[in-house]
Structure formats: structure tokens, C-alpha cells
């Protein structure tokens, strides 16, 4: 599904990702854990195609399709979805309009029919209810004035509506209280499917109590320095990142 080989990424003059390789097969959830500054957010932004994140070497593909040569919107149409650590506020654009525009742009890029307004509203009502999002909130400008928890729920709603193949969750647990964490995690778990891959990027083990990973990778100094089963997350929680940070340095 997702295959990353020897990826090198530079932001400005600084190389942040230094030869990262990672495979996430379809149907699996992989966690990437690491200390601050290891390159976790850089990895997620690089996969989504953020401008000024310059890939200097390596490859990243989804189902054999090269991602790095594609524009961010083309990557989205191919099924890449990044849940932002800090979702942006979009003044003046109601959530409903934003989502319908995004969904239809993806359909158009894939040569599919547009989703009609009634079909769209029916779908979004159901998915919003499952995430305990008040429908009225979707008529307000997207994320403007929303709490941290509301923004993260909106991210999951967008994910549910756009139905991506690769889900990248960048520090989705940051800023969430325990109730919001549960709602968000349930939303993510509902999307687990044999034809989807998930990359859960997190500093803390806490989120992984709710979203159970199949594999855990440790990212330090721009490389994967250790991989293992879910027990690796607990080990990190107990022992910290020190030994990996030293090993990488």
C-alpha cells in the first residue's frame, strides 16, 4: 500500500528526514513515535506535498503510484489524507461548502460523477451525528473559533466524507481531553478496513490505547531506528526516547 524508500527531505537549508524507509500494507495501522524534532511532522507534510518541503532523494508511493511527483490535490484524489496537528481556520467558507467542494474536486479528478447536494447532505448528516458534531456547526466558517477538540473532530469528519486510502494522523491526540479522544478514536477505528492503511504519528503512547497499531516504529533524527509490535509503544512510554536519540546521534 504505502511504500517509502530512503526518503530525504529538506526544509530550507536543513535536512530533516535522512533516509527513511517504511512500508504500511493495506489493512494495517502503523504508529510512528519519536521525540520532538525527530521529523514526525515533516514526514506527514512531505507525504501530503506541502510546498517548501523539498524531497532531495528517495521515493514514496501508494499502491505503486508515485506520490512525490503529484500536486497536493492530486495526491488527495489518489487517496492521501493528512489530519493536521493544527487544523487551519478558513474564514468565510462554511464547513459544508468546503467539504462539498473538496469531495467534488476529488470526484472530478478521478473522472467520477459529482455528488448531488441531497446525497451529500444525507451522507454528512449521518457522519456528523456519529462524531457528535452539531449540524449547525457545519454552516459556520470551517474551524473558525472552534475548540481544539472540535477542530480534531472536524478533521475526522472530513476524513470520513472523503474516504481516503491512506490516513495520516499527525499528533491527533494533542489538545484533546479524554472524552474527545474517545470520540475521535472511535471515528478513526470505524474507518479501519482491509483496503486502507493508516499512519498514526504521535509523541505519546496514550492515543495507541484507543487506536491499536499493528506495528510501531521509532523515528529519531530523520530515520526509523527501531520497529516492533504494539509492546514497543509501552516500552517507550516506560523508558523514554533517550536510548534511540543517543543511538541516532
Amino acid at each position: 500500500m504505502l511504500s517509502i524508500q530512503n526518503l530525504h527531505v529538506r526544509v530550507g537549508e536543513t535536512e530533516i528526514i535522512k533516509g527513511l524507509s517504511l512500508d504500511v500494507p493495506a489493512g494495517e495501522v502503523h504508529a510512528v513515535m519519536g521525540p520532538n524534532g525527530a521529523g514526525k511532522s515533516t514526514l506527514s507534510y512531505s507525504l501530503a506535498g506541502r510546498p517548501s518541503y523539498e524531497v532531495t532523494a528517495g521515493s514514496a508511493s501508494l499502491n505503486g503510484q508515485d506520490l512525490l511527483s503529484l500536486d497536493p490535490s492530486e495526491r488527495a484524489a489518489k487517496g492521501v489524507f493528512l489530519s493536521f496537528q493544527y487544523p487551519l481556520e478558513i474564514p468565510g467558507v462554511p464547513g459544508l461548502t468546503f467539504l462539498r467542494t473538496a469531495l467534488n474536486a476529488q470526484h472530478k479528478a478521478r473522472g467520477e460523477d459529482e455528488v448531488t447536494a441531497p446525497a451529500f447532505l444525507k451522507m454528512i448528516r449521518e457522519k456528523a451525528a456519529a462524531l457528535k458534531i452539531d449540524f449547525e456547526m457545519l454552516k459556520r466558517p470551517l474551524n473558525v473559533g472552534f475548540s481544539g477538540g472540535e477542530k480534531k473532530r472536524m478533521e475526522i469528519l472530513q476524513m470520513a466524507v472523503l474516504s481516503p486510502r491512506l490516513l495520516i494522523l499527525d499528533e491527533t491526540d494533542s489538545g484533546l481531553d479524554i472524552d474527545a479522544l474517545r470520540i475521535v478514536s472511535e471515528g478513526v477505528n470505524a474507518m479501519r478496513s482491509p483496503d486502507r492503511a493508516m499512519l498514526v504519528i504521535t509523541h505519546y503512547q496514550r492515543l495507541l490505547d484507543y487506536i491499536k497499531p499493528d506495528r510501531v516504529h521509532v523515528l529519531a533524527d530523520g530515520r526509523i531506528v527501531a520497529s516492533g509490535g504494539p509492546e514497543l509503544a509501552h516500552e517507550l512510554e516506560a523508558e523514554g526516547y533517550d536510548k534511540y536519540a543517543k543511538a541516532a546521534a
Partner: protein
Amino acid sequence: MSLAAALRTADVTKLPSRRDEDWRWTDLRGLLREVPPASPQIEVAEGGPFASVAADELAYGNGRSPNGAEYSSLTMVGDGTLRLRFVSDAAATSHSSFVAIAVEEGDTVTLLESYEGKGSAYVASVEIAIEVEAGGHLTRIVLVDEPADAILVSEARVVLHPGATFKQTVLTTGGRRQRIETVVTHPGAGGSVRMDGVYLLGDRRHADITTEVTHARPDGVTSQLVKGCVSGQARAVFQGRIVVAQGADGTDAKMGHHGLILSERAEIDAKPELEIYADDVACAHGNTVGALDEEAIFYARSRGIPEAEARAMLTQAFVSEVVDRIEHEGARDVARAWVAAQLRGPDDL
């Protein structure tokens, strides 16, 4: 110094030039070496951008009213909505018109004014004298759709009597040189004025939105929000002046102008002026010129919205704050669809 005077007398020295402080960003003298010949008379079919909103129309074709006069006096009787159309279809010629409008005591009138230009390189002048009697209400929506190489100056003088209100929204895509000017005498207590505007300029277009509101009596309220964007080598001018005369205590005036520059060679010149000669007033102004939020653009692109569409959507959202202030539902819908069509953004914003 005015375009109208220059056209009437065929004397280019009467044109405003960059030496006139109020015209320094909208020089006409340097643009016209001679006064172009008079435009031909044309037939104007019913219609215009507000055709679906109101039945009554008064249409000027190349400056002439339906009975062929360049000058007409109009008193509006009773409440209602009127479409006032200035239709140009000319090539390298010139025309001018003068319209007087009165809103009678206590009446509520909506004026849907459109500038509909065809042809090229013409010069048009429109002067409008508006008087709103005591307790009258006038809403004026001005939609300007002119060719890229046309020159247009529209000047409105608005006198408001006690308790009268005036709400104006100008929407324009500019022209070769274009000025939409509104000068208002505020009636003070019980009266209120809104002076909004939207400019959407591309290529080498120019538009100048100039307003002046004079508060001569106490306790008047004025609110102004002008927003717009420039791309290509376009140039927008905003000159907003609010004068609070001696004795006009208790005046409450807010002025906001916010522009987006979407390309390196586009330009916005803004001159917000508050001239206050009274004590105890609440006057505020905000003026910003900036670029689109690139982080928000990336966010939209990451959801599958192509870059051009994302930029259009965010630009449209930026100016829609002004359009949303239009209370007349039909006019608001027309304005919203017009903005969406200009920017090619989503139709449900």
C-alpha cells in the same frame, strides 16, 4: 475639475489630473489628449443584471434617457425598487448623463444601479444627485461591469435629511480608468450611512472607490467596509474620508478597508482619512493590505481542491463579508453569484 465638465465643454484642460490631490491615483488628464466625439444614440433592450429582482427600470443608452435627454429629473413616489441602468455600447466616443433622484418622506426605496458596457475605449461620465427626505430609506446597490479599456467616472452626491438612512454597496471589476465616487451629507441623530464596496481587478484594470461622508450634526452613525483583490498588473484605489464637523458630537463612525494583493505587479493605494473637529466621538478605522494565507491554501489543496480553485474560494470568502451585509435578498443573491462568477469560486459560498 471633472470629467463631466470636460465632456460638456469639449475641453480637456478641465479633466482632473495627478496634480489634484483627490485624483492623484486616477489621472485622466494624462490619458486623454482630446475629448472623444459624442457616442451614437442606441436602443437599450430591457434586462440587466438585476432583471430578475425588480420590474421597474430606467435605462440610459450611451448617456441618453429613453426620451433622448442627457438630463433627467426623477422623483420616486412610494416605496419600491428601481433598476437604474447605464448601458454603454460605443467605440472611442464619449457620453455623459445626469440623473436626479428623490426619496420622499418616510419612503423606502431600493436602487439597483448597473453599469453595463459593450464596445471599447469609450469615455463615460455619470452624475447622480440623490436627496432622501426626512425618515426616508435608500439602499443603493451598484454593479459595474465595463470593458477593460473603457473610462468611467460615476459621481453621486447624496443629501440626507433628518432620520434618513442610506446604505450603499459598490461592486466593480474596474476598467482602464474608473472612479466610483460618493459624497454624502449625513443628517446626524437617527440617520445612518453605510458605504460598502468590493473591487475584483485583474489584468491591467484600475478602479477607484472614493467616498466622503460629512457629519455636520451630532449623533450620526456611519459604517464602511470595503474589500477587494487585485491580480495581474491591476491597481485599486480606495479613498475614504469621514469628516466630523465641529459640534457633531456623539458621532459613531467606523471605516474598514482590506485588500488582497494576488500578484507581484498588482497594487493597492489606500487613503483612509478621519477628519475630526468635534469632541466626544467614537471613530475607528482599520486598513490592511496583504496576501492570501498560504497555509490555508495548502490545507484546502490537501483535501483535494486544486490550487487555483482554492485561491478563488478563499478570495471569494474574503470579500463575501461585504456582500453578506446587503439586506435586500434578491440583490444579495445577484451580488453573490456575480462575485462567484468573476472569481470562478464555488456558487454556494
